[in-house]
C-alpha cells in the first residue's frame, strides 16, 4: 500500500495520542482527558455535561480559555481546525448536498491537494471499506440515514485524520440500522485514536477501551470500560451500566447517606470511617413489598414509585427516596403482588451480600 489513501487503515499513522487538559470558562468545563494512541475513549455523561465542548476543543471549533491540547506530540493550541488532522463525525451526517457521495468522500483528499482522479480513487477505497461503494454516484438527498452516516464516516476517514471525533454517531439512526453501523465502526476504529461521545452503553462496550464520565463539566469517573461498567462509582455510570449507585460515606459496616444506611461488603480493603464510598447493587437483587414497614429488617427503605416499564420478561420499577433514584427489576409475578401505581409507597430491600462497596472516585 503505497498510495496515500491506503494509509490509516491501522498501519501506524496514529503514532501519538490525544491530550485535552483545558478550562473552558464560559461553559464551566474543566477537564483533563487522555486518549492513548490507537485507542478509543468513550466520553459519557448526561446532557449538558460538557461532552460536546470537549469535542469542539479537540476539533478547534471551541476555544479553550486556558490549557493544553496536544495530538501526536504536537500542540494544537492556536492551530486552526483545517490544520489539525482531526475529523469529526456528528449525529447528523452533514454531507454536502451539492456533491455526489463520491465527491463528498473525495473532499478531504482534494482539500489536501490531491488531483480529482487520485482523490476519487481514495474515495472509492473508503466507500468500499464502510460497505457503501454502490452509493458512489448517488446524491446525499437520496440516501437513508444509515447510508448517509456510513458515507460521512468514509468521508471523515478519507481525510486521514490523526484523531477521529465521534459525536453520538448512532443517535439519529433507526434501531434496525444502528448495529450494522456499530459493526463498521468497530472495524475501522481498531488501532485508531478516537474520542467517542455516546449515551449508549452498547457503544461504550463494543467500541471503547476506556470510559470517561463527565458531569457538570468535570470528570467524575474514568477507567477501562469493563471496570467502569462493572464497578461504577458515579450515579451516571451506574445508570448507563444498569446498576444502582448510592454515594455516601463509610460508617461502621454500612454506607451512610443522610439517615439511610446501606449495609454491604467492601470490595477489597475496608474503607476508613468517613471515607467517600459508593454502594453498588443490581436492580435484580432488589425486592419490593407493600403494606406496613417490616420491623427491624436491615437494608430496607421506604420509597415512592416513580414509574414502571417492561424490561424483557421482567418489570423495571424506578423508585425515589429523597434525591436518589433506585431501580428494581422484578419478575412479573412479584410485581403483581405489590401496588406499583406511580406515587405509591413501597418498601425496598436488598440483601447486604448483594451490595458492593467501592471507594468513590476523587476527581
Amino acid at each position, binding site marked *: 500500500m503505497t498510495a496515500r489513501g491506503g494509509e490509516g487503515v491501522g498501519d501506524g499513522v496514529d503514532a501519538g495520542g490525544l491530550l485535552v487538559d483545558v478550562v473552558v470558562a464560559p461553559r464551566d468545563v474543566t477537564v483533563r482527558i487522555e486518549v492513548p494512541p490507537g485507542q478509543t475513549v468513550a466520553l459519557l455523561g448526561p446532557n449538558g455535561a460538557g461532552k460536546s465542548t470537549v469535542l469542539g476543543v479537540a*476539533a*478547534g*471549533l471551541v476555544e479553550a480559555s486556558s490549557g493544553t491540547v496536544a495530538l501526536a506530540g504536537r500542540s494544537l493550541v492556536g492551530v*486552526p*481546525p*483545517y*490544520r*489539525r*488532522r*482531526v*475529523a*469529526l463525525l*456528528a449525529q*447528523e451526517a*452533514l454531507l*454536502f*448536498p*451539492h*456533491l455526489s457521495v463520491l465527491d463528498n468522500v473525495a*473532499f*478531504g483528499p*482534494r*482539500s*489536501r491537494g490531491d488531483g480529482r482522479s487520485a482523490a476519487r480513487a481514495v474515495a472509492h477505497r473508503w466507500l468500499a471499506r464502510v460497505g457503501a461503494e454502490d452509493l458512489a454516484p448517488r446524491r446525499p438527498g437520496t440516501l437513508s440515514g444509515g447510508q448517509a452516516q456510513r458515507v460521512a464516516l468514509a*468521508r*471523515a476517514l478519507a*481525510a486521514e*485524520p490523526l484523531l477521529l*471525533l465521534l459525536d453520538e454517531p448512532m443517535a439519529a439512526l433507526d434501531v434496525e440500522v444502528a448495529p450494522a453501523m456499530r459493526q463498521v465502526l468497530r472495524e475501522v476504529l481498531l488501532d485508531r485514536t478516537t474520542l467517542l461521545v455516546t449515551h449508549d452503553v452498547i457503544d461504550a462496550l463494543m467500541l471503547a477501551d476506556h470510559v470517561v464520565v463527565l458531569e457538570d463539566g468535570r470528570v467524575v469517573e474514568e477507567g477501562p470500560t469493563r471496570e467502569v461498567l462493572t464497578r461504577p462509582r458515579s450515579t451516571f455510570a451506574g445508570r448507563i451500566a444498569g446498576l444502582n449507585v448510592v454515594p455516601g460515606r463509610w460508617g461502621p459496616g454500612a454506607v451512610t447517606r443522610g439517615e439511610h444506611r446501606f449495609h454491604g461488603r467492601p470490595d477489597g480493603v475496608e474503607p476508613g470511617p468517613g471515607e467517600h464510598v459508593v454502594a453498588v447493587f443490581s436492580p435484580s437483587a432488589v425486592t419490593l413489598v407493600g403494606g406496613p414497614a417490616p420491623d427491624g429488617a436491615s437494608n430496607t427503605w421506604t420509597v415512592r414509585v416513580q414509574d414502571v416499564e417492561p424490561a424483557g420478561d421482567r418489570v423495571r420499577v424506578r423508585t425515589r427516596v429523597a434525591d436518589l433514584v433506585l431501580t428494581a427489576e422484578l419478575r412479573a409475578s412479584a410485581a403483581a403482588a405489590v401496588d406499583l401505581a406511580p406515587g405509591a409507597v413501597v418498601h425496598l430491600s436488598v440483601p447486604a451480600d448483594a451490595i458492593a462497596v467501592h471507594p468513590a472516585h476523587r476527581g
Partner: protein
Amino acid sequence: MGTVTESRLGAPRWLAIPALLGLVFVLLPLLAMLGRVDWPGFGELVTSDSARDALGLSLRTSLTSTVLCVVLGVPMATVLARTNLPGRGLVRSLVLLPLVIPPVVSGIALLYTFGRRGLVGEPLEMLGVEIAFSTAAVVLAQTFVSLPFLVISLEGALRTAGQRHEAVAATLGASPTTVFRRVTLPLVLPGLLGGAVLAFARSLGEFGATITFAGSLQGTTTTLPTQIYLERFSDPDAAVALSLVLVVVAVAVIGLARPGRGVL
C-alpha cells in the same frame, strides 16, 4: 381528510376579499396599459433608433451593475453573516440605506461624490477620468440602489444555511478559502442567484438616481425608463409600447428567478 384539515386551519375566509382587492390593484394598471398599446404600430415603435439604443443600454448597464453587485455584495454579505464584528448591526443598517432613501436623493449624493466637483470626481477629473453624465455613471447609479437587494438575499441565505457544513469541511482539512469556494458558495447559490436577479430587476427599473446623476444622452445615458419618461408627453404611444417591453423583461426575469428557492 387532508383537505378537511387544510380548509379548517386555513386563513379566515373574509381575508379573501381584501386579498382579491390587492391583486386587482396590482393587475388593473397593467391591463389598463395593455389596453392603450398601439398594436399596429408596436413593431415600429419599439424598434426605432432611440428605443433600440435605450433597450440595449439598459440591458448592458444592468448586467454590468449586477456583476458589480455580486463582486461587492458577496463579500459584504459574508462578512455580515459570518463575523462577529462590533457594530455589525449598524453596518447592516447603513448598507440597506439605499433601499429607503429616495432614488433622486441617491442621485444627488452620487453627484457630489463622483461629479465634476465631487469628493472623488474632482481628483479623478484631474487624472482625465470623467464619470458624471457618462455610461459609467448609469452603472454606478444602478449599482448603488441595487446592492442592498443582493446583500439582503445572500445574507439571509447564509444565515439559513448555517455553519455546520463549513465546520465539517474545515475538519476535513479545507482551508477557509476552499470552504468558501467549495461549500459556502454552492450551498447559498440559490440565494445568490435570487439576489442577483433582484439586483438586475432593480437596475433595469432604475430611473431617479440615473437621471439625476447621469442625465439623458441618447445611447450613452438614456436608459429605457428614462426614454419612457421623456416620451410620455411627446409620443405617448411609444412610451406605452416601451413600457410593455419593460414589463415583459421584468416578467421574464421573475420567471427565471422562481427556481431560486424562497427568494422571490
